[in-house]
């Protein structure tokens, strides 16, 4: 198994109990099937509830998530010589209550061509190859080609061969496209890219892999055995893939044509479905020889070696980054390209790269960009190379997702996007392709997401916006495979209930994942997450986002999460001034917690309106208290019985009494006068 893919079989040893899946299958984790295991998965037995027991399931890992969009498309394909899923989705295993992604397949009839990577491929005779491999696998290749689906996992250990010699393509969905492919089986540009940066690629990549497979079974053993990945790439660049893999070895005459056609390094010249079908039908073609890169009249010395071709130099520059910077800063490269290679266009592109480097000197990354752009000029077919990043132009989002937690990688990917290296790569291509428009659009979409680094956006958002169905990578969801936002809150509930979350159950990944799936504009709310050390604000905003999530996607009850949030925010209740209100709020929080309603909890704990009301009431109470205190002080200091006050009150009183008595006297006198 490739070293970059994590082994999960041992981690999942505790899974034993059967579990029903999608109401159609029963998964039997106790029954392991290591012979059917794909890299980075655990193969277990499965049975259909209708009685078909010849099924197996692959439990996938979230670190190398399965190909979500391809699963949907592949499920519609029915082809007897290619494994296509009969079921897929997430399921909770009862032992640990963890949700995992599972792919269900019918068990293949044969055994693997080689049990695992590294074993020697058995040599086969011409007839077996033509009938058992080429003719037999044509329907699968035709299906893939006609639907523009990419298998990207054609390699000997993923080919099942029946006892009668008939081959079958193994599954290709459990890990990202070409993630487990050996460099040998990838076209030069894809091999130069890191496994995470190969991407879906195109149908022609599968034909190349098919060509390598045919070459290996035709010659037996292992091609370029003992050579490192870099040596394989170097050999392919130097001699061409056919030259490097087949070379002077005698291969069956009939197979020479398809091997030449399928192993062509020029995708425009490589055999595709019509060519191989024509060949299979007896119309023999002679594939065009792809010329090797032009040689310079004199070599250029770089990193202790001499190079005669531009792609060879570009490959060496990829592997010696700091040396490359020195080469760019000297004028040797430009003069070598113009004088020794006599390529003025390439020279102009290198000069342009140097100038851009000077313009970007203030950012500190100008030299790096110049190296990257120079490699593009020297070898336009190569992937985007930038420091440790080597990625095909359409695989940037996938590479970000797969290498997110690799130290320093995110910053480099951010540079790739911000320096518009993808656009530079497209511009450097000598031939334009219609898919470039879609690629540019995708890159611009990524650039939009990283424009703002506010939580909810940034590189985390690029992961989810650029990779449909990619599971939430937050450490807060633990091992739960959350590819659907409906499963996010249950996963958090489970994590909180098991005591594995102490602080706010929201981080940048959860926000980015949620923002990518939720309806509504949350930009104002996201600003509240900017300072993670302002716990009250952060926790309040977390509650708000979780409550909105519960409102939109359920589930209706989240008691553990509600209790956890109430616990985090209960201090805010204590911050209310009014004691009766505080008591009411405490009771309301208790009720909401018992019911597991985050929405109610949020309306209490993160409600600025009631906070304002409380503050206004408190301010008034303070004012009244202070006024009363002044009155009491005045009274205690004898203000009421002071001479002035007594005089004033007495004058008023005597005037009133005098008026009353005079009125009575007047009434009396009037009565006496009348009578």
């Amino acid at each position, binding site marked *: 198994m490739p070293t970059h893919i994590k082994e999960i079989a041992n981690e999942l040893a505790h899974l034993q109990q059967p579990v029903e899946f999608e109401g159609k299958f029963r998964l039997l984790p106790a029954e392991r099937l290591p012979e059917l295991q794909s890299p980075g998965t655990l193969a277990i037995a499965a049975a259909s509830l209708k009685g078909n027991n010849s099924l197996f399931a692959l439990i996938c890992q979230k670190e190398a998530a399965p190909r979500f969009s391809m699963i949907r498309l592949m499920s519609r394909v029915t082809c007897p010589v290619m494994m296509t899923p009969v079921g897929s989705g997430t399921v909770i295993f009862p032992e640990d209550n963890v949700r995992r992604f599972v792919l269900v397949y019918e068990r293949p009839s044969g055994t693997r061509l080689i049990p695992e990577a590294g074993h020697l491929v058995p040599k086969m005779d011409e007839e077996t190859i033509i009938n058992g491999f080429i003719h037999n696998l044509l329907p699968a290749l035709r299906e893939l080609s006609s639907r523009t689906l990419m298998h990207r996992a054609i390699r000997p250990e993923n080919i099942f061969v029946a006892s009668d010699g008939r081959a079958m393509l193994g599954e290709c969905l459990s890990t990202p496209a070409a993630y487990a492919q050996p460099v040998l089986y990838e076209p030069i540009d894809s091999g130069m890219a890191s496994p995470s940066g190969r991407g879906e690629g195109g149908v022609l990549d599968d034909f190349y892999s098919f060509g390598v497979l045919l070459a290996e079974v035709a010659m037996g053993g292992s091609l370029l055995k003992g050579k490192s990945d870099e040596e394989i790439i170097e050999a392919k660049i130097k001699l061409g893939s056919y030259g490097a893999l087949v070379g002077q070895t005698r291969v069956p005459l009939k197979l020479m044509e398809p091997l030449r056609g399928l192993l062509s390094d020029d995708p425009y010249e490589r055999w595709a479905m019509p060519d191989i079908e024509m060949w299979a039908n007896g119309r023999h073609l002679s594939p065009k020889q792809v010329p090797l890169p032009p040689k310079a009249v004199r070599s250029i010395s770089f990193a202790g070696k001499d190079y005669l071709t531009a792609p060879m130099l570009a490959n060496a520059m990829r592997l010696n980054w700091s040396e490359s910077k020195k080469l760019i800063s000297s004028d040797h490269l430009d003069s070598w390209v113009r004088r020794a290679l006599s390529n003025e266009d390439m020279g102009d592109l290198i000069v342009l790269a140097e100038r851009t480097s000077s313009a970007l000197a203030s950012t500190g990354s100008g030299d790096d960009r110049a190296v990257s752009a120079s490699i593009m000029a020297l070898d336009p077919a190569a992937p985007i190379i930038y420091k440790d990043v080597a990625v095909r132009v359409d695989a940037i989002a996938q590479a970000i997702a797969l290498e997110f937690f690799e130290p320093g990688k995110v910053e480099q990917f951010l540079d790739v996007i911000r320096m518009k290296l993808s656009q530079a790569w497209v511009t450097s291509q000598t031939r334009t392709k219609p898919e470039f428009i879609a690629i540019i659009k995708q890159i611009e979409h990524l650039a939009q997401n990283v424009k703002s680094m506010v939580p909810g956006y940034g590189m985390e958002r690029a992961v989810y916006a650029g990779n449909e169905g990619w599971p939430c990578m937050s450490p807060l969801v633990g091992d739960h495979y959350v590819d659907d936002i409906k499963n996010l809150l249950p996963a958090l509930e489970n994590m909180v209930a098991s005591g594995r979350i102490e602080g706010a159950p929201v981080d940048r990944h959860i926000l980015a994942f949620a923002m990518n799936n939720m309806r509504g504009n949350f930009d104002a709310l996201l600003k509240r997450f900017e300072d993670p050390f302002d716990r009250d604000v952060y926790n309040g905003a977390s509650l708000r986002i979780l409550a909105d999530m519960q409102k939109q996607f359920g589930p209706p009850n989240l008691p553990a999460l509600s209790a956890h949030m109430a616990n985090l925010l209960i201090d805010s209740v204590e911050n209310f001034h009014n004691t009766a209100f505080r008591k009411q709020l405490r009771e309301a929080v208790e009720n909401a917690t018992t019911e597991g309603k985050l929405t109610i909890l949020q309306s209490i704990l993160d409600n600025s309106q009631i906070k304002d009301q409380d503050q206004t*009431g408190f301010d008034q109470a303070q004012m009244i208290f202070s006024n009363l*205190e002044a009155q*009491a002080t005045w009274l205690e200091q004898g203000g009421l019985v002071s001479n002035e006050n007594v005089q004033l009150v*007495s004058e008023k009183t005597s005037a009133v*009494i*005098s*008026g009353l*008595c005079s009125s009575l006297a*007047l009434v009396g006198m009037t009565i006496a006068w009348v009578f």
Partner: protein
Amino acid sequence: MSRILLLLILLVLAAVLMPSAILLAVLMVPSLVVYVIDRNPHRYFTVTIGLPNFCGVLPPLMELWERGQSFDGAFSAISDPWNMMVAYGAAGLGWILYLGTPIFVSSYLSISTDGKIKAIRRYQDDLVEAWGDGVKQSVSATPEQDAEPQEQEVS
């Protein structure tokens, strides 16, 4: 302007009712004196003296009018010691009232002070109970101590 108008009306009335004016001028001397010495803008002292004084003047004034508003009638009423005694006596009662009221008012206010303080403290306790000790915080920033505070309704 209005004062001048009032003075003019009074002068006209005095001219028309000269005997009555002479009678009032003589018998209401205490009120006139108080009016002069009273510095209170509300003229509580003047009211306290003037009203009983006028009640005392009213019987001879009525008698003068019944007799037909003559100077003789007016002078004879002025010269009657009984009328003089009644008018000045009534003014004297008003004076006694003015001088005696502070004794009672002072006693009443000193009794009510304790009650008022208790009511204020009760209200303050209610506020502390409802809003916590925080409401006391602004007390340190109480306005000038000598200034009479705004009257707060104490329930």
